[in-house]
């Protein structure tokens, strides 16, 4: 085995203590990072924490598998290949509310189902969003005069996006999803907790 020779001329002297203001600024590393970014010609991206976290959030919204009435049939159509929900990173419908961060309230919220819907929402981990789909979930729809149907799911849980229709076409559904993505983009990442709104 060859012996290893160390070229001592290439060893840089120990860094000297920063003295001037400029040296001190240099020493924080911030300037160096900026200079390095310039040298690397776009290989480093700058972003705000808000943008970065929100990008992560809206790019992989996982809906909880829950449907209440005929609108849920339309939800199945939305998830099928033709309308291709996967391009939004949200084809993974979770069977457990613990793993989901989006709830489609798709269908008629009957009085008897209402506490269950509320419980499902409360079981989801923050941050979470709700899209109310169809006339029934928005207002009670065709059953507004009924004794057994809740007049709008926003009576029991907060709703981010309302999609009208009976049932809404998958295109309307996708438009609602895009609106929710816009909403998440414009939020501060702590908005759900009441921080930096």
């Amino acid at each position, binding site marked *: 085995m060859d012996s290893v020779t160390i070229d001592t001329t290439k060893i840089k002297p120990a860094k000297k203590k920063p003295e001037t203001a400029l040296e001190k600024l240099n020493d924080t590393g911030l300037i160096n990072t900026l200079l390095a970014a310039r040298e690397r010609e776009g290989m480093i991206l700058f972003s705000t924490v808000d943008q970065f976290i929100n990008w992560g959030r809206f790019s992989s919204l996982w809906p909880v598998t829950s449907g209440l009435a005929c609108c849920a049939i339309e939800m199945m159509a939305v998830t099928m290949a033709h309308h291709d929900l996967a391009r939004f990173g949200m084809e993974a419908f979770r069977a457990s509310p613990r793993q989901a961060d989006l709830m489609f309230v798709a269908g008629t919220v009957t*009085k*008897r189902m*209402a*506490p*269950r819907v*509320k*419980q499902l929402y409360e079981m989801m981990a923050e941050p979470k969003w709700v899209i109310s789909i169809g006339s029934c979930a928005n207002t009670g729809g065709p059953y507004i*005069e009924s*004794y*057994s149907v809740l007049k709008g799911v*926003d*009576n*029991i*849980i*907060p709703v981010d996006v309302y999609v009208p229709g009976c049932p809404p076409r998958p295109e309307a559904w996708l438009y609602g999803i895009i609106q929710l993505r816009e909403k998440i983009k414009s939020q501060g990442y702590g908005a759900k907790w009441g921080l930096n709104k």
Partner: protein
Amino acid sequence: MNAAEELKQAMPAAVVSTGMLIDKPLAIIKKEEILKAAGKVKEMGFDNLSVITGIDYRDRFEVIYNFFSYKKKENLVLKVVLDHEAPSVDSVASIWKVADWLERETYDLVGIKFTGHPNLVRILLPDGWNGHPLRKDYDMETEQFVTMGEDGEDIVSTDGSNLLRRR
């Protein structure tokens, strides 16, 4: 001779009148005789009791039994007329098993008592619901809410304070 007339011939004391309900043979039965008539209908070859409905006509209730025969492809409708104060009629669940749930539904929504029913409790609405919603005099003004108790049982209340969001 259609099935209703056949039934009248077999038990003339039980059948008040016969006719047609749209295109189905209809027999109006004395309410005391419904159990016997339901048994006779089974003997006549009807093998399906498809639905039992109750109607509130303000001065009377009517309970309507829709039978169908898969063998003969025939319909038969039986009807009993009940007074409005305390509507009650014998249960046919001992002859037609399916009547168990159908009668519970009619009890739940229209409030007709089926005497002799094995388990006459509400089937769609939770226990404790006030009133029978398909009655004409049902109170639509007071809204009733359902909440869940500790063990997941339904609790009916009119305020819904632990369900609704405060605004």
